[in-house]
């Protein structure tokens, strides 16, 4: 079962998205801010990270940069998520090191498509 780390500060978002992903056969672990997200990701064992971009402590862009700089998380796929959906957000996320990017509200089939594409044969 592929393991996903969901880094998200909004409780309802965490509850909703984790349940929906679990239903689709993923094991979901959660972090509530950027700092915790980086710590948990670096302890290893995740196949993919879903990173909200507007997070307290360390924001998603910075957390992504830190994960890309650390040898143990350098290659873990990261999908950036944001509800801002401003022009240029996508480029900013990819620049920080995200493999892909999606907006909220989440369209589950679209997000699942991106997750599966990045996980390749894992599932």
């Amino acid at each position, binding site marked *: 079962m592929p393991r996903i780390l969901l880094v998200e500060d*909004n409780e*309802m*978002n965490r*509850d*909703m*998205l984790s*349940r*929906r992903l679990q*239903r689709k056969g993923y094991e979901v672990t959660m972090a509530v801010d950027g700092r915790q997200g980086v710590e948990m990701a670096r302890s290893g064992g995740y196949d993919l990270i879903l990173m909200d971009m*507007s997070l307290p402590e360390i924001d998603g862009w910075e957390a992504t940069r830190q994960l890309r700089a650390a040898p143990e998380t350098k290659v873990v796929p990261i999908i950036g998520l*944001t*509800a*801002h*959906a*401003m*022009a240029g957000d996508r480029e900013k996320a990819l620049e920080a090191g995200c493999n892909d990017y999606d*907006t*909220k*509200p*989440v369209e*589950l089939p679209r997000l699942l498509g991106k997750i599966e594409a990045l996980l390749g044969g894992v599932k």
Partner: protein
Amino acid sequence: MNTTLSGTTLTVEAQAQLRHDLRTPLNHIIGYTEMLLEDTGDDAPAGRRARLEQALAGARVALDLINAALGSARRIVPGDVVRLYESLQEPRRSIVEAVSGLLPESDGDGGGAFNADLKKILSAAERLAPEPAQAAGAASAEPTAAPPAAPVDATPSQARILIVDDGAENREVLRRRLEREGHAVETAENGRRALELVAERPYDLVLLDVLMPELDGYAVLDALKGSPATRDIPVIMISALDELEGIVRCIERGAEDYLHKPFDPVLLRARINASLDKKRMRDQEVEYLREVNRVIEAASAVEGGHYRPGALAEVTRRDDELGHLARVFDSMAQQIKAREERLRDRVRDLRQEIEWARRDSKEADSALDGGNLRSGDNFAQRYEIIAVMGRGGMGTVYRAKDLELEEEVAIKTLRPEFVSDKTLLARFKDEIRLARRLSDASIVRTHDFGEWSGVCFLTMECVQGITIRELIDTRGRLGVSATLAIATQLAHSLAVAHAHGVIHRDIKPQNLLVDEAGVLKVMDFGVARLAERSTANTEAGLVIGTPAYMPPEQLMGEPVDARSDLYAAGVVLYECLTGQLPFQAGSVISLVAKLLKEEPRPPHDVNQEIPPALSALVLRLLAKRPEDRVQTAVELGLQLAALC
């Protein structure tokens, strides 16, 4: 909710926050509803699926409304946000209605989780678009308070409106109506008071009664439309039904629209909103044009050399083409300014070198060595010789006083032994014709040509300075910074001359003067020729210029062009940086042999302090084939700027 406003437009940060605040609850509504739909099997209670689908449809409508209102390419004003919130009320109601309808049912069947998710959807719907605080139909005279979580708490109203009517009842009815719509309303009981208020503060709209004692509606309208400060405030006339003729007059005089008494609430709202929308668009246009003007002003400021970086900060924050233009422009202007500052630093270093050279050199300018004229001699019945400034291949240069104009000039005489040489004389006359075409601070100005007692002479601007020759001779070699100051100015000077079709042909340290301010001036166009006439006027094989600074093609008597000057500039820079010539030889023959066979030692090898990129640029100037060199003086200037 913390939405900030910049003038009349939401800042980019505020827009981002607004999207976040709207899309987050929508994410919850859609996510939970879709999940509940997945759980809704065929055995589910009747109507459950339909209600969940209704909620989902409501959420999708809300998303479309948000996307349409907050499209990324738009400028968003507070009024847009208020309208968006109003438009979200309908889908919100639909969601709440659908989900509330399921709650009693779920309470009944003990579906705790189902129930909890429904409550989450309801709470998200409330956050998506808070229900307006005011109960519909309330006739309260109190101004409408903004909903507690309204998005634009800095602007509790849509517009600031002035009502001008002598009837107290009319004023009161209108005021209540408009306040209920969320506007900030003030009233005036006569025309005079109205004009006072308008002079004091800005209004978005004036509602103006036609018939008033003293100053009537026409007079007030004329006053408003006659002043540039108030001309653009839309005015809606208030009239009784039988005043049609008067209304036509008002509209001809610039009134936006009219309203009949008694007021129809729907018509009132529609006309007021239409007027406000038009004003908003006009304001935006005016604002846009103002910002276009700022960019134009900034361009003139750059030309005038007084552009202040960041002057366009406000325009650069726009997310349209004008903002993009302003960002590109600002960054270019900042780069130019930074370069200018670096150049200033370099010139300062150059001046320091000059200062040191002055201190080191022995005072020798009183001796008139080699010249035929002596200090105090009168020359051409107009000039008094002061001192010898230097000696060139063709004559002596004196510092002299122009007795007629009472200013110092430089006089360059042609050696008497060359007077008989018709070619040299013609060449000398060419000097003034060419030099007079060139007018630039970087080129020594030529005043006049004359002949006196068999001596041909040229008068020139007298530059009190030091030649690069003297600088190198006293300093040994120059610092990188001072050399770059010389190089940048030399590139500019050559670019000016080349643009006029003039090739110097004899660029060398003796011909480059630096004045006290560190400004480089190129002198001695005595051997220069118009490029297009070079082959016709130069005898085959006749070498003009100073061999050590000449490119191979000039030494071989082949045609020269602008790139030959660039080679000479390369030799000068090589010498400035290293204190030595790229090729050292005892005779022209051995120089030609070396020049054709050998490569110069890279300046960086001679002196490690020279940056490799600068060293490489100097070597490119010294390329044997003209086509391998930097091709133009303008390009050299750009390459030097890139080294900064």
